[in-house]
């Protein structure tokens, strides 16, 4: 996917970060996303997957290392500036404003450019038809799957070049998980680069161009999604031996 003359849309190098003073969750982690690429990050619980996304987006202070967006150094710039630069972020949990209606949630998504609301909400309601039907409904009353759709639509309102997804399938039924992965693929197909961390490693690698395996705050393996899917060691450690059956 990557070509040499292109500047990567996201380049995070040797990132060290954590929540408590003196305790590093990420211990020198590097991730790269090329324009139009769909990149997945998998790893066991506590490997630092969500931490990586938060550090890249600017919600968490980076202690060492750097983050560059399209070549521009954005290390430790606040998250709302990344939104302006074309990065969308969907948190794992609590990713909608429950007390607001679907329409108001979409309006929050385009807080920085209120003038573009009508056009973008129409476009996104076409992509996520369920939202058009629920426009006046409170987001808090929607099912988990519908909420995930709304959360993604909210993040897409600003027409980001890069979408960061934190475990989009977490807590969803298998049917809804399939729907979410399908949508992620569709969003990427429309030209948006995606960096997704996932606990559902197998389904994630199936749709990704490239994958990273994160272990104890460092990336252990990097390869194309399909090759990781068939890598003996990855299967052994992260996919479970049942995966070999397929």
């Amino acid at each position, binding site marked *: 996917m990557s070509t040499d003359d292109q500047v990567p849309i996201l380049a995070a190098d040797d990132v060290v970060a954590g*929540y*408590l*003073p003196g305790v590093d969750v990420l211990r020198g982690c590097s991730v790269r996303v090329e324009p139009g690429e769909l990149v997945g990050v998998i790893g066991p619980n506590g490997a630092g997957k969500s931490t990586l996304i938060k550090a890249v*987006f*600017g*919600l968490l*202070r980076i202690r060492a290392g750097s983050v560059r967006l399209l070549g521009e150094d954005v290390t430790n710039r*606040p*998250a*709302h500036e990344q*939104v*302006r630069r074309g990065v*969308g*972020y*969907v*948190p794992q949990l*609590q*990713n*909608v*404003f*429950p*007390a607001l209606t679907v329409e108001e949630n979409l309006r*929050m*998504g385009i*807080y*920085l450019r209120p003038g573009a609301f009508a056009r973008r909400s129409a476009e996104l309601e076409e992509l996520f038809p369920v939202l058009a039907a629920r426009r006046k409904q409170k987001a*808090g009353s929607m099912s988990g799957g519908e909420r995930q759709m709304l959360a993604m639509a*909210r*993040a897409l309102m*600003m027409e980001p070049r890069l979408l960061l997804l934190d475990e989009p399938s977490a807590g969803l039924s298998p049917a809804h998980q399939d729907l979410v992965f399908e949508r992620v693929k569709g969003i990427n197909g429309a030209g948006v680069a995606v960096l997704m961390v996932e606990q559902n490693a197998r389904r994630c690698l199936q749709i990704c161009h490239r994958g990273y395996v994160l272990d104890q705050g460092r990336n252990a393996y990097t390869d194309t999604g399909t090759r990781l899917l068939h890598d003996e060691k990855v299967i052994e450690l992260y996919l479970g031996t049942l995966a070999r059956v397929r």
Partner: protein
Amino acid sequence: MARSHILLPALAPALVVLFASPAWGQGDEVPHGRGFGARLLQALIDGIQFGVIIAITAVGLSLVFGTVHLINFAHGEFVTIGATFAFFLNASPAGPGWHLVPAAIAAVLFGALLGGAVDRVIWRPLHARGTGLINLFIVTIGLSLLLRHIVLVLYGTRPASFVQYDIQEAIDLGPVGITPRDLTVTLLSVLVLFGVAALLQRTRIGTAVRAVSVNRDLAEASGIDVQRVVLFVWMFGGALAALGGIFFGLEEIITWDMGFKLLLLMFAGIILGGLGSAYGAMVGSLVIGIVAQVSSLWFPVDLQYAWALLVLIVVLLVRPQGILGRPERVG
């Protein structure tokens, strides 16, 4: 506001008492030459007067709690400093002797600066270092002590009043009376509260404040500059506290520990109304003010705060989330 329909049930007990009262007053002895109904009505008016002032001071405390989840113990001192700063400009022999109106405006601006300074000097750096909320809460207790004693040194212990609008003849409204000063202060307070509600509900910064209090990360992800919103909330809270202090000083008296004494009632109002909800803080404070004043019809005035706090306990037993609070959503 969709929540306004909850306001009526909250005030219903007060209204029921109001309409039932003439029947009570007739049979019994009528002390002080005025009927019980008239005294109750007067206590109710006093209660509303008191309640809206608590509400003005409590809204800022509630907004700060809502956005950064910090209980700011020094908020009472914001109130005191607002009143004493206005007193300095208006009535102190050492001051410039301004009229109260410009003095009040200057004190409100000073309150905003004070709130902003607490954000920039204390909250932001300590929070960035990962200081826990409990530790920060203790820090605000220390700040409260420090500020209160600075006021004590500069202002002294003597209660005082502003130069203008000090002693006034009450306007006779049939069974009850209210001075033009108190009427003006109350109407202004109500206007300010409606203004705060309009700001939160209709303006861009108000939307941002509400978004930050619901979900900080999601607000950031929407492109909202959360640090700026938090600074705004601290300044806004400081300004409202100062204004409340001036109003309280006008209606009652200015003392070096007035804000500290009000703080308990602000807490009661906020918790009664529902933690973190600005409208809850308003309704809760109003209830606290009314209960405090009405209780003095039967019980010694010294106990009026105790009755207000008793109501808090009773309401929380029935509605743990407070009057306007939402129960925590699970799943």
